[in-house]
Structure formats: structure tokens, C-alpha cells
């Protein structure tokens, strides 16, 4: 194969004009190279400007974390207060509640929602009938594409007070069921909603990894007398480890970001004590409450910690012999 491609005249002709090996090209100065590719910049510049304005310029807005900012005075007119906003965060009981809720939900997600797609992928993969497998996949992928507003509205109609389950329990003499406003079980509910919406879609990446396992490994194991369970444990699962590590890194990086829209929508129903997380705190305190400085400081701190966590877990994964993201 490789001999054929190397001696194929078509390949050589194709490579010559653009390749850096071409002697004429190498002599071009930077200015000449830019001029030669001038048309390329008509494609690049608009998109680059877009990212500059909508992803990088807003970063500068974080300076209001060091100000007693008010929208009327603007960034130029608001007084600088140094780290006062950051100091205020530590003594604010609402921040501590939000932080506690965020961490509890994040840990529950990591323990229950993270392994769920792996389990589901293994279960579906063990099905012999391809038709059944595809049918189940069609069903479990669907909720991923529904917005959180729709998902929570649907859950409300099923598990809320006056919903389907409440109606059934009522008929059996148990009244007052309402899983959607129960503050004690709210965190479990959040994880359950998350699994319902994302678990099916999450299997896709694991299916891709499973598809990459050569069949002869299973064949050889079967000939050596490995049971289906042993084949799953010793062949399929190890093949999923790199992908799982990658997802784990991303998950740990976003440990302070738990389902923003999901919680924002449900907070009025269950109350801030159970449903306030860092992101909703930023929204309610800053945009709604007008305390821009403190809210921005909390958001900035959260972003910085998140970035450090991604970099650290990436490093750790590499150190442990795995593959990182970058």
C-alpha cells in the first residue's frame, strides 16, 4: 500500500504547489506570504473579530469585581475598592449556602450522573438485536434536545403537585405528594433530571469507543473461555477508560457550574436555601439585586478556580499515564 502511494505520480504533483518543500516558496518573506494569502484574511478576519468582541472583550468587564460599580456611573466613574468585594464574599452567608449547594450537587452528579451513560452504553451494547438497540437509542437521545424549560415543565406535570403521580397517589389515599417543591429531596431530584436529560446522549461517545475495539479480541477471549461478563470487564471497560478520563477532567473543571438554567427555573419553587448555587447567586445578587461588584467578584473567583481545576486535573491525568485534553 505505502509503496504504491509514494510512487503514485498524482500524489506528487498534488503535493508540490502548496508544500513548504517547494524551493520557490521558501524564499518568500513574511510580507509576501501574507500578500499571497490576502484572500484568506477576508474569511478569517470577521470571525476573529467576532471572538475578540464576544469572548475576549467581556473578560475586561470583570474589572468591576474591584469596583463599587453602578451602571449609571459606568466603569470609568465607579470608585475602585480593591479586594473589598472579595472580602465581602467570605462573610456573606448566602455565598456559603450557594457554595455548599453547588458542591453537594456536583458530588452527587459525579457519583450518580457520571457513570450512568457508561452503564447504559454497556447495557445497550450487550443487546444482540441491532433493531432493538437502535430503537432504544432513538428514545434515550431525545431528551437531550429539549430545553430545560420544557424538561422541567414536563416533570412538573408528572411529579409536581396536581401532576400525574400526585393524582395516582391521591386515589390511593396519599395526598399532598409534590416532588418538585420538596426542599429536602431537591438535590436528588436535580440529579435525576440530569440523568433523564443527558444520560442517553452521553452514551454516544462511549459507543464510539466501543466501536473502536477490534472484534478479534472478543473472539480470542471467547475461545479462551471468558464469560460475557469477563469480556465486558476485561476488554470493553478498559477501552472506555481514556474517554472516561477525558470527560472526568472536564467534569471536575466545571464542578462549580451545576445546571444553571435547571436551577434558575426551579429556585422559585423550592426556595433559595435548597436551590441557590453560585451561578444563580451571581444572577440574583448582581442582575436582579444590583450589587454588581460582589456578584462579579463571585463569578470571577468561580471562573478562576474552574480553570485551575481543569489544568490541575489535566496534569494529574497525564501524570497517571493517561491522555489529557491538551
Amino acid at each position, binding site marked *: 500500500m505505502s509503496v504504491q502511494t509514494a510512487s503514485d505520480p*498524482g500524489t506528487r504533483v*498534488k503535493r508540490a504547489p*502548496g508544500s513548504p518543500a517547494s524551493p520557490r516558496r521558501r524564499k518568500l518573506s*513574511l510580507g509576501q*506570504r*501574507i500578500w499571497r494569502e490576502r484572500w*484568506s484574511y*477576508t*474569511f*478569517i478576519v*470577521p*470571525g*476573529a473579530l*467576532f*471572538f475578540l468582541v*464576544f*469572548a*475576549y*472583550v*467581556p473578560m475586561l*468587564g*470583570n474589572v*468591576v469585581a474591584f469596583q463599587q460599580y453602578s451602571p449609571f456611573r459606568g466603569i470609568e466613574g465607579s470608585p475602585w475598592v480593591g479586594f473589598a468585594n472579595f472580602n465581602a464574599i467570605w462573610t456573606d452567608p448566602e455565598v456559603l449556602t450557594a457554595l455548599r449547594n453547588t458542591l453537594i450537587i456536583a458530588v452527587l452528579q459525579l457519583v450518580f450522573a457520571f457513570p450512568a451513560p457508561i452503564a*447504559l452504553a454497556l447495557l445497550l451494547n450487550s*443487546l*444482540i438485536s441491532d433493531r432493538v438497540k437502535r430503537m*432504544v437509542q432513538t*428514545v434515550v*437521545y431525545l431528551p437531550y*434536545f*429539549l*430545553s*430545560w*424549560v*420544557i424538561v422541567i*415543565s*414536563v416533570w*412538573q*406535570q408528572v411529579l409536581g403537585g396536581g401532576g400525574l403521580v400526585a*393524582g*395516582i397517589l391521591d386515589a390511593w389515599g396519599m395526598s399532598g405528594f409534590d416532588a418538585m417543591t420538596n426542599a429536602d429531596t431537591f438535590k436528588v431530584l436535580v440529579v435525576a433530571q440530569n440523568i433523564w436529560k443527558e444520560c442517553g446522549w452521553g452514551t*454516544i461517545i462511549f459507543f464510539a469507543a466501543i466501536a473502536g475495539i477490534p*472484534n478479534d479480541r472478543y*473472539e480470542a*477471549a471467547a*475461545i479462551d473461555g471468558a464469560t*460475557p461478563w469477563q469480556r465486558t470487564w476485561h476488554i470493553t471497560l478498559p477501552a472506555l477508560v481514556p474517554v472516561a478520563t477525558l470527560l472526568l477532567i472536564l467534569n471536575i473543571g466545571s464542578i462549580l457550574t451545576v445546571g*444553571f438554567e435547571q436551577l434558575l*427555573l426551579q429556585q*422559585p419553587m423550592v426556595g433559595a436555601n435548597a436551590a441557590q448555587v453560585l*451561578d444563580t447567586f*451571581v*444572577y440574583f445578587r*448582581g*442582575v436582579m439585586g444590583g450589587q*454588581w461588584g460582589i456578584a462579579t467578584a463571585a463569578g470571577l473567583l468561580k*471562573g478562576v478556580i474552574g*480553570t485551575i481545576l481543569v489544568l490541575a486535573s489535566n496534569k494529574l491525568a497525564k501524570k497517571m499515564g493517561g491522555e489529557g*485534553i*491538551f
Partner: protein
Amino acid sequence: MATATMTRPGKAGTPPWMAPPSIWVRGIKALVIVLIVITMIYPLVYVIAMSFASPSQARAGVIFPTEFSLDAYRAIFNGGTVTQGLSNSLFITVVGTLLSLAATSMLAWGLARTRQVPGAKAVLIMVLATMFFSAGIIPNFMLIKYLGLLDSTWSLIIPGLISAFNMIVIRNFFQGLPEELIEAARIDGAGEWRIFLQIVLPLSKPVLAVMGLFYAVGYWNTYFNALLYINDSEKWPIQVVLQQYVLAGVQIPGAIVSPDQPPPPGVTLQMAVIVLATLPILIVYPFLQRYFTKGVLTGAIKG
């Protein structure tokens, strides 16, 4: 094949080493799968069915309605608020998707030849980095305010015009296009824009279709940005309307079928709004679904 001896009498296409599991294992698996499917699909089926329930059955509350009526939908379309929300969302989705596809594929084509174009690599890294950080809610709000986009429908389109992830997927596809074809057009004297519009884009229809569907779903599901940027309820997209009427419990104004008839029960109205907000997703879902297994998306995660 050496494995021929292992073949069991089974369905064609079954791998020879896969012995059919015992009846118990199969039974448990079937049970688990049926439970999963019911959990996923029944809530949606229930909401759709109840939106068509007759008023008496809706008030009584049933597991599945047997008498049907279209009153809820009639009332909603008479009311106007939901219709306004749907048409706002339709505008955002159609215009947003077209602009997003144009902007994303342009940037992807510009960045497809990073080695030849000085500076392209730097731009690529700058774009990729945005996948790992975000400026935060308040700085984004301040930018939109500064740009004068508050209370404008464009605030729901422009900030999300290009997704770095989608750009990478399209760029990967462009890089796989046959170089000879593009080189030949160049030799024949076609301008770069003409090559892009008449050769590159037509060849990339499959990937543009998938990315277009993903953008469309994203625009249709826009909620938080609208909550943040849009005060005028006339300009709300359907998701905000849905949240107001179903979760916040605001009465739908003008929801009357006819003056001499009592309005349909609130439950069916709410269910009908949910169905209307979900319908477009259900319509495009079969098209989306065809591409899931093709690995268009999974290959692009490592930039």
C-alpha cells in the same frame, strides 16, 4: 473462518462468539430496558395526550385521556401571546441558523490551511481557548448593554453566532475535501470566493446540514439570554413564554375559545404550550438522528 465451530444456531449477523444469554439474564435486561424506555417517553406522551384531553377529563385527572378536544389549542391561538412567542422563536431560529452557518463556514475555510496562512494558527488557538472559559454572566450583560442590544432580538442571535466546537467540526470536514478539485479550479482562474461558494460549500452539504440542525435546536431552546437581555414581553421567545405560563403560573391572557363558553382548564392550556414549544424539536429530531452514528461529532473533541 476459524471460528466457524463456535457458530450457534442464531440470527444471521450475530457474532459467532456471542452465545445467547440465559433466559434469566435476557429477562432482566428486557425488563430494565422497558423501564428505561417508559421513563424516557411516557412523560412526553402523557403531556401530548393531556393537551388534547376533554375539559372534564383534564379536571378529573386521568392517567391517559379517552375523550379528546382541541379547545386548548384554539384558546391559545386566539390569545396571541403564545403565537407571538412562537413567531419570535421562529425568526431567531431561521435567521440565526443561516447567519451562524455562513459565519462558521467562512471562518472554518479561512482556518483550514493553517500552515500556509501566517497568523491563522494564532487565531485558531484563540478560538479554541473560548471552549474552556467564559467571561461570566455580568460582563456579558454589560457588553450587550454597551452595544445597545438590550431588548433587541439580535441580542439572542449575534453573541452566539459562531460556536468554536461547530467551527472545528466543519473545518475538519473542509480539510478532508479533495485538494485536486480546489487546485484545478484555482488553475482555471476561479477566485477564492467563487471556489468557496461553488465548490467547497456544495461539497460540504452533509456537515452543514448537521451543524445547521444543531444551531437550530440551540436557537429554538434559547432561554436564559432572553431572560437576561429582553424585557419587552412582545419580543420573548417561546421558551420564556412557556416558563411564564407553565412554571411561574401566570394566566395566559385572552385564552378564550368563544365568549359563551368557559375557558379550557389551565392544565390542558399548559400542556398545549409545552407541546407547541417541543413540536419543532420533534419534527427535526428524525433528521438529526440519522447523523448521530456517523461519528461526525465525536471525532472533533480533541482539537
